[in-house]
Each structure stands twice: as C-alpha cells, then as structure tokens.
C-alpha cells in the first residue's frame, strides 16, 4: 500500500465513493458493464487500485449478466465481490440475480445499480428497490455520496452475514453528486475461505429450491428483526406535530433541505429508511397510526408506501399526491410537502428552457456512416440501437431504439412483416460494444432464419458514450493490463454471415460502394443478412490524432443547408444576419468529410485558392 495517511477527506462523486467503499470493505473482484449513471464506479476502482497498489481484480465485462456471474462466482469461491451496472443492466442480469437470491452467496456480494429518475440517460424510470423486493434481496438506498460509501461497507457486511446478494441503489443525484467524503484505510482483502462443494445449494434442483426459498424468507425476517437500517429513523427534530414524512434515498436529501428552509415544515417529523427492503412494515404502520397524516416521498415507485397495510391516513403515489412519473426535483418536493401539509403552494411559472440537443461530435466517424447509409438506402426502415449513434436520430437515420442489441433482433421482425417489405428495406445500425453486449445471438438468429436486412456495425473501438471503456475487441483490460482482443470479423464469420466487409467511414466513395454491394447481396440477390463494419476510432480517445487542416466556405455556397441538415455537423453555423454559412474552427475536427459531400462543392481547405 502506498497510501501514507489512514484517513483523509476527498471531494468524491457518489460513484467514486462506492468504489472507495468496496476497497475499504476488502473487496477483491469487481465486474461491470458501463452505463450512465453507473460507469464511474468501476472506473474509480481502477484508480483506487493504482493509487493504493491494491490487488483487486477489475473487469469491464461483455454485459451485465456476465458481470454479475463473474462477481457471483468470485463470491462462491470466497471473495468479497462487486458487480456494477445501471438499472436497465439489472434487467439483463435479472436471470442469474433472482436465482442467486435463492442459492445465496459466500463472500459478501454487492450489486451496485444506478437508477435514473427523469430519465436523463436511460430508457425507463424503473426503481431498483422494487426489483430488490421482486428478487427478495436487501437493498440499501444512499442519500449522499458520503452515505454511499458507508452503505457500501454495510452492504458487504449484510450480504456476508445473511449469505444473500445485497443491492446498493444510488440514484443519479447521488452517483453524479460530489461531496467532501471522509475515507479510511482499506481493510485487508476479505474472504470466507475457498469454494465448498454443495450441490444441494450451488446446483440445486427444484426440490431444493423450495427449501432455499424458505431459507431466504427466514433470512429476510431475521434482517428486519436485527438490522437497524430496516427501521425508519427520524432525521428531523421530533416535533410532536400532526404530520410525518417518510422518505428514502437521494430524494430524502431534497426533503431534508426543503424542510430545513421553511418554517411551516418545522412541525413535520421526517423519517428516512436506509434499507427500503426488507423494511420493518410494523414500524412504518406505527408512524402512520401516530400521526394525522403521513406523506411518502420516494423515487420512483411506492415501495415503502405499499408496505403500509392500513393506508387510510397515507398520502403518496397511490393517492396521487406524488406524481406517478418524472424526477422529484427539490422544487417539486417543496410543492409536494407543502400541499401534503395543506399549506398553499405558490404557483411558479415553468422555466422556459430551450435545451440544446446533443449531437454526434465534429469528426465523429458515425456521421459519414449515417450520411451514406441514408444515401444508399433511401427509403429504408433504420433499426437503431443504444450508444452515441442513437444520435443518428438527428439525421433521420435511426427509426427505432428499444434496448441493447435490439437493432438486430428487431430488424429480423421488421423485415418479416408482409406490409410494404419491398418498398422499405431494413438497415440495422449498432456500435461495437453493443454488438458484443447483446447483438451476437440476434445475428446468429438472423443468419439461421435468412433474415433479409443489412447490418452496419459502427466500430469505433471503444464504448464511447460512457467514456471510452474497452470492449472485448481491445487487447487491454479495464486496468490497462494485457487481454486478448477478440477478432470481430472472425466472430461474425463464425456466426455464419457470408458477406462481411470492413470500410473506413471517412472514405465516402469506398463506403458508398461497400453499402451498395451489401444492398445487392441482401436485397437484389436475396442471400440473407450482410454485415458492413464501418471502422474508425472514436475522435474523443486521447490517442487519436485529428488532422490540423481547417476548412472554409466559398462563394459557391447556395445555402442549401445540407451541411446542417443532412450532415448535422455542429461545426457549421448559419449566421442569420449575414445570410452566410460559416465553419467554427474551434469546433471543427478537420475530418474533411463535408468537402467530399457538399452538393455545391463550396468547402475548401483553408489557404487553398478559390475556384
């Protein structure tokens, strides 16, 4: 260990605090798949590993199911282990997760699942506390980054004590908040001794599953009896007033600050539940019974509220006092609390926000790929997927976006429906990381069933949207140590695809010709799915050198707007007053693709003579 001080205070993001908590708990195996708002958990573990010269094993797994299974395997073999993912990742990992709840664990196993009420960067607003209830596993729900660190340590203890996976559920406002967080010296690598063979447990047949289910129920009852986190705790002064609020997680921090800032709320008893499942339902009922009104403020599902049997004096989501969707931001929390009290709320005008939409970066290799796909497959249905390249929607080249890998699975169905197949060929687009994550079985299915669509894999060599984490094709691992890069072409060949071509998306002509060949193979010759790999590294990666060349727009420009509409490059700016299109040199990445495709050939390298 190179750390000199035992204790310190750091300005940590919630996700970094969770990583730190795992290190302090003696965790020795961590696996994750990146996804906002969870990605920094494993990234911080990589940094702590280096800073402390800590022996923890860290990996970016191919998907969340495998990440969970790696962590679960390590737990059975005796190690404290962590799996991290965003909440929709838990859907992917749900199969092993629910089964693991029955079988139980050996070394403490914590699954950190980041929720995204809003949603800001996700498909759903699902509540992982509800998932924990569904799976019958304990869940800790931190309200701040500092609490996230403490709860990570507790989650390991609880998991190991009851031999059950423990979920840690930070919301985005904890994950991406920063705070001064006290840190302590890490415990030595913890463990419960090597794997012990016991097929009645680790390979249980249904007969034993019934026994394991009973045992799980007993564990949950024992937790409620023994663990203080299952009971609501008062986080305000005991007021003796007629109204109580019960809250949990990141929204509890908004509740606290709002209550402290308004005298009318001084007479409210505010309770927080650190472990919303399994919760001491009798203690919740007691609070409800001893107050005239009890308001439940929780995000995003009524998990605590539904644990109250007699809800006649309860206000919350079930009564419509808390909106059934959307993030509970502090101003909304204030309104909910005041109206719960029966106090008047001041109607504030809704802020006038014209948010700038995100775009593919200047120089992004996905832009020329989308541009050319649209040109070659003019009236196609564009089956899209999850990643930076979902932004192809801005260019009108992404028509669907369901979940990781669905571009390929759905393409099989889009191409299968008898309505208008011939007028609307199907083209699927997917990134390299998403392809590895969930696209491979769908591609095998497409080959096997002779599904007629073209698949374009937009290979930028990293998981770009979440910050550039390595994919299985990279020959290095999460911590930079050497790994084996999986050959994507061989893999696709192994899936049985006959037509595979690799092309540089910056080369407009080659890209167009390649896509035309794929079109002939799949649609004209009816030979089934063809795959085009549009390969060029993400421009945001530190080792990617972009050309110094800059461009300007000549008099040939007839303001057709193709550069802003079809290319959708942020470097182009239309100056209304001058009726002129210009290139912002600070934004331009120098890729020069616009020069190749400008309909008026008006874009020239700077300094070159005008025609």
């Amino acid at each position, binding site marked *: 260990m190179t750390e000199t001080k035992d204790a310190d*205070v*750091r*300005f940590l*993001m919630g996700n970094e605090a969770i990583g730190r908590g795992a290190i302090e708990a003696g965790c020795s195996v961590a696996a994750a798949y990146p996804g*906002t*708002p969870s*990605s920094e958990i494993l990234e911080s573990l990589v940094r702590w590993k280096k800073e402390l010269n800590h022996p923890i094993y860290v990996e970016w797994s191919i998907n969340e199911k495998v990440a969970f299974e790696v962590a679960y395997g390590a737990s059975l073999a005796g190690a404290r282990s962590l799996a991290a993912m965003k909440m929709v990742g838990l859907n992917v990992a749900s199969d092993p997760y629910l089964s693991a709840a029955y079988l139980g664990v050996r070394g403490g196993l914590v699954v950190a699942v980041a929720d995204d009420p809003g949603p*800001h*960067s996700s498909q759903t607003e699902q509540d992982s506390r509800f998932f924990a209830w569904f799976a019958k596993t304990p869940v800790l729900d931190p*309200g*701040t980054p500092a609490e996230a660190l403490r709860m990570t340590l507790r989650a390991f203890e609880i998991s190991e004590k009851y031999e059950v996976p423990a979920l840690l559920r930070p919301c985005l*406002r904890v994950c*991406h*908040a*920063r*705070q*001064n967080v006290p840190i302590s010296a890490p415990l030595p690598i913890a463990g419960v001794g090597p794997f012990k063979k016991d097929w009645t447990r680790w390979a249980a047949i249904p007969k034993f599953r019934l026994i394991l289910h009973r045992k799980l129920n007993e564990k949950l009852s024992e937790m409620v009896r023994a663990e203080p986190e299952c009971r609501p705790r008062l986080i305000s002064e005991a007021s003796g007033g007629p109204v109580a609020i019960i809250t949990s997680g*990141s929204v*509890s*921090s*908004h509740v*606290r*600050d*709002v209550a402290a800032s308004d005298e009318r709320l001084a007479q409210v008893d505010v309770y927080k539940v650190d472990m919303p499942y399994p919760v001491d339902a009798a203690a919740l009922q007691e609070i409800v019974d001893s107050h005239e009104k009890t308001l439940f403020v929780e995000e995003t599902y009524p998990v605590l509220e539904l644990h109250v049997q007699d809800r006649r004096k309860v206000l919350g989501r079930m009564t419509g006092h808390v909106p059934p969707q959307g993030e509970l*931001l*502090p*101003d909304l929390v*204030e309104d909910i609390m005041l109206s719960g009290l029966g106090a008047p709320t001041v109607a*504030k005008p809704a*802020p*006038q*926000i*014209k*948010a*700038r*939409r*995100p*775009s*593919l*970066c200047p120089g992004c290799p996905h832009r020329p790929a989308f541009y050319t796909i649209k040109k070659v497959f003019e009236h196609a249905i564009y089956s899209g997927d999850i990643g*930076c390249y*979902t*932004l192809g929607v801005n260019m009108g080249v992404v028509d669907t976006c369901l979940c990781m890998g669905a571009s390929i699975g759905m393409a099989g169905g889009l191409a299968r429906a008898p309505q208008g197949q011939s007028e609307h060929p199907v083209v699927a687009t997917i990134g390299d990381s998403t392809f590895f994550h969930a696209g491979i079985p769908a591609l095998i299915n497409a080959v096997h069933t002779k599904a007629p669509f073209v698949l374009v894999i937009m290979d930028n060599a990293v998981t770009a*949207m979440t910050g550039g984490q390595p994919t299985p094709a990279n020959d290095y691992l999460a911590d930079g140590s050497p790994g084996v890069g999986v050959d994507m072409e061989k893999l696709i060949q192994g899936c049985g695809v006959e037509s595979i071509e690799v092309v540089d998306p910056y080369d407009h002509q080659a890209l167009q010709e390649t896509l035309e060949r794929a079109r002939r193979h799949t649609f004209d010759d009816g030979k089934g799915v063809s795959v085009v790999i549009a390969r060029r590294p993400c421009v945001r990666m530190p080792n990617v050198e972009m050309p110094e060349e800059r461009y300007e727009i000549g008099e040939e420009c007839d303001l057709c707007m193709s550069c802003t509409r079809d290319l959708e490059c*942020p470097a182009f700016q239309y100056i209304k007053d001058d009726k002129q299109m210009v290139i912002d040199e*600070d934004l331009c990445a120098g890729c020069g693709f616009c020069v190749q495709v400008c309909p008026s050939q008006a874009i020239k390298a700077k300094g070159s003579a005008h025609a």
Partner: protein
Amino acid sequence: MLEMILCGRGGQGIVFLTRMIGQILIAKGLDVLSSETHGMAVRGGSINSHLRVGPFHSPLVRESHADVLVSLDPGETANNIHFLKPDGLVVENSPLPDDPRTRRVDATRLARDAGRAQLENVVMLGFVSALGLLPVSADEIKARLAQDPRERVRALNLKALEAGVAAAS
C-alpha cells in the same frame, strides 16, 4: 453559504471547473455538494453544474436560490436564469457590455489569445474569482493550477487564469 449554477454546452469544461472549485473549497475545510451532468448531453447538448457550499444534503440548487449563475455560453443563460435569486448576479462569456445584473467577459477570445479556445472555462474561473464571487481567491486557484504536473497544460491554464483576472479589474 453559497449556491451557484455553472452552465454551458457539453465539451466546454463545466464539469472540470465545478470539480476544481469544489476541491479547493473542501481543502479549506468547507462542506461542499455539487451535481454534474454526464451521459448523452455532454455531446454538445445543454449542461449545467450545481454547486452548494454550506450545511446542505441535496446537491441541487432550487429555483430562485442561486447567488451566482456562471454561463460559458450566452445561449444557455436563459435556460438557467430561473435558478438565480432576484438579486443574484449573472457572469457570462460574451463580448457584449455589462448590465446591472450581468458581468460579461469575452472568455472565448481571451482563451484563444492564451493559446486555445478550450481554455474559456479557466478564463471564466479567473474572472469570477477576481470579482470576489467565490469563497476562494484567484491566488489560491493559481496555486492549485500550478500543481499540474503537465508542463504545457500548467502554463496554458495559468495564462488563461491571469487573462480572466485581468479582465475583471
């Protein structure tokens, strides 16, 4: 106590700026909470950071509670103005002149003069700190930037900070 919003476009270094201010403040023993924007929005979309110094639990500034709104892109000021107190101050990256509620500095131009347009966040930091809007002085920020081990980054940052400080006087 201080509540502040920093806003701009993804890619302008808002997260870096918020983090650095927070780190300096906690080194002074203050309680700090901040909230960052990550994910899809950082690809050139509208982003903001919240910064709260004092006895808070939530990282988010409520409407009409911010003392200062620092805007790296004048197009984003209106999207965040609802956070500002009625007597709060806007500090904006813009070549236009000041008005009673807004102090302006052409941080993009000063950054380009200092070597790179991407330094506009550091110019802004120099300007804001020289206006006395942070519980930390320009000199303390300078000391922090001087710790950067990368020589070229260090030199550029210090130059940009100085340019921001000078613009405030």
